[in-house]
C-alpha cells in the first residue's frame, strides 16, 4: 500500500496513526524488505505449507533490518503453483509434499485413478489397481494427495523448496534451488544465508549477482560454514 504526497513535516504523525491500526512503514533502500506470502494451506485448496506462520517468524526477526549490501526480498508460496513467485526473490520458499501410498489406518485405496488423472507430470500410473509413483518425475505439488478421496495417499516428506538469488528489475533472473524439504530449520537457514550474503557481497550487489560471481557451490559452502 502506498500513500503518495505525504509532506515530510507530517511523516511522524502519519507513522503514529498507522501504528495505531497495526501498520508499519515499509522498508526501502538496502534493507530487509516486507515479506510477501500467499495465503497457503489455511485457505487455499492447493496449499501445502503454512506460509503465514513462516512469514510471521521471518517478519518478526528480520523485517526492516538495515546494514545489508542491497535490498533483500523474501517470497513464500504454499505450493508449486508458486503464485507469489518465490523464484523471483532473493530468498524464496515453496511448500512441497512428496506422496506415498499408505493404506494403514483404514485408508484403503479404491483404485479410482484420480491421482493418475490429476498429476500434471504423469508421475503416477495405476499398476494392479494401485498408484505407482515415479519420484524422478514427481514435482511434489501434492495434487494427488489433496485429491485422493480416501486419504490413502499421504505426504511422506514435506517442507519447503528453498530458492536463492532470484530477482526482477532490469536484469531479471530466477533463483537457484538451494535446498529441498526444509522444515523446522527454515528460519535458521535465513540467518545463515543472510550472514553469508552480508559477509561476501560487495556494496549494492544483490544475492543473485553475488552467486553469479562466485558460483552456487561456493555460496553453499559459505552458508554451511556460517555460525548461527
Amino acid at each position: 500500500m502506498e500513500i503518495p504526497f505525504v509532506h515530510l513535516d507530517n511523516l511522524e504523525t502519519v507513522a503514529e496513526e498507522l501504528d495505531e491500526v497495526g501498520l508499519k512503514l515499509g522498508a526501502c533502500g538496502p534493507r530487509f524488505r516486507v515479506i510477501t506470502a500467499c495465503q497457503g494451506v489455511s485457505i487455499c485448496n492447493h496449499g501445502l505449507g503454512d506460509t503465514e506462520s513462516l512469514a510471521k517468524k521471518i517478519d518478526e526477526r528480520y523485517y526492516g533490518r538495515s546494514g545489508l549490501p542491497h535490498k533483500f526480498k523474501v517470497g513464500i508460496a504454499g505450493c508449486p503453483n508458486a503464485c507469489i513467485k518465490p523464484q523471483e526473490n532473493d530468498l524464496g520458499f515453496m511448500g512441497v509434499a512428496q506422496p506415498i501410498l499408505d493404506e494403514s489406518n483404514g485408508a484403503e485405496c479404491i483404485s479410482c485413478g484420480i491421482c493418475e488423472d490429476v498429476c500434471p507430470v504423469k508421475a503416477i500410473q495405476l499398476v494392479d489397481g494401485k498408484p505407482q509413483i515415479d519420484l524422478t518425475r514427481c514435482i511434489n505439488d501434492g495434487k494427488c494427495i489433496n485429491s485422493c478421496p480416501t486419504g490413502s495417499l499421504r505426504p511422506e516428506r514435506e517442507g519447503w523448496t528453498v530458492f536463492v538469488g532470484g530477482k526482477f528489475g532490469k536484469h531479471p533472473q530466477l533463483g537457484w534451488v538451494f535446498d529441498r524439504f526444509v522444515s523446522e530449520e527454515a528460519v535458521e537457514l535465513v540467518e545463515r544465508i543472510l550472514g553469508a550474503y552480508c559477509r561476501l557481497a560487495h556494496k549494492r550487489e544483490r544475492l543473485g549477482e553475488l552467486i553469479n560471481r562466485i558460483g552456487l557451490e561456493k555460496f553453499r559452502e559459505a552458508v554451511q560454514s556460517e555460525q548461527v
Partner: protein
Amino acid sequence: MNRSEESRGVRSRETDGGAIHYMDLRGEICPMNWVKTKLRLEELDPGEPLEVLLDEGEPIQNVPRSARSEGHKILNLKREGSYYRVLIERGHLSHGT
C-alpha cells in the same frame, strides 16, 4: 432415466440394497456442486449412500475431498468417459468440522 431428467437434480431410485439417493452434478460449477452435495448429505441418515455424477477436472478433485474432510466416506469412484460416478456414505457427524 435420460440426461435432462437427471440434470433437473435430486432423485432417488430403488435397488436391491434399498434407496440410493442420486444427483447428477455434471455441468455444475465449483463450489455449487459441493454445496448441493453437502446439503443433500445433511438430509440423509448416517450410513446412507448418495451417488453423484461429477465432471472431470476441478469438480472431481474437489468434491470427494471436501466430503471426506467433513467426515463422509467415499465408497466408490469410477470414471465413465468425461465424468465420474461417486458413491458417498453419509458420515456420523451432524455437521462438517
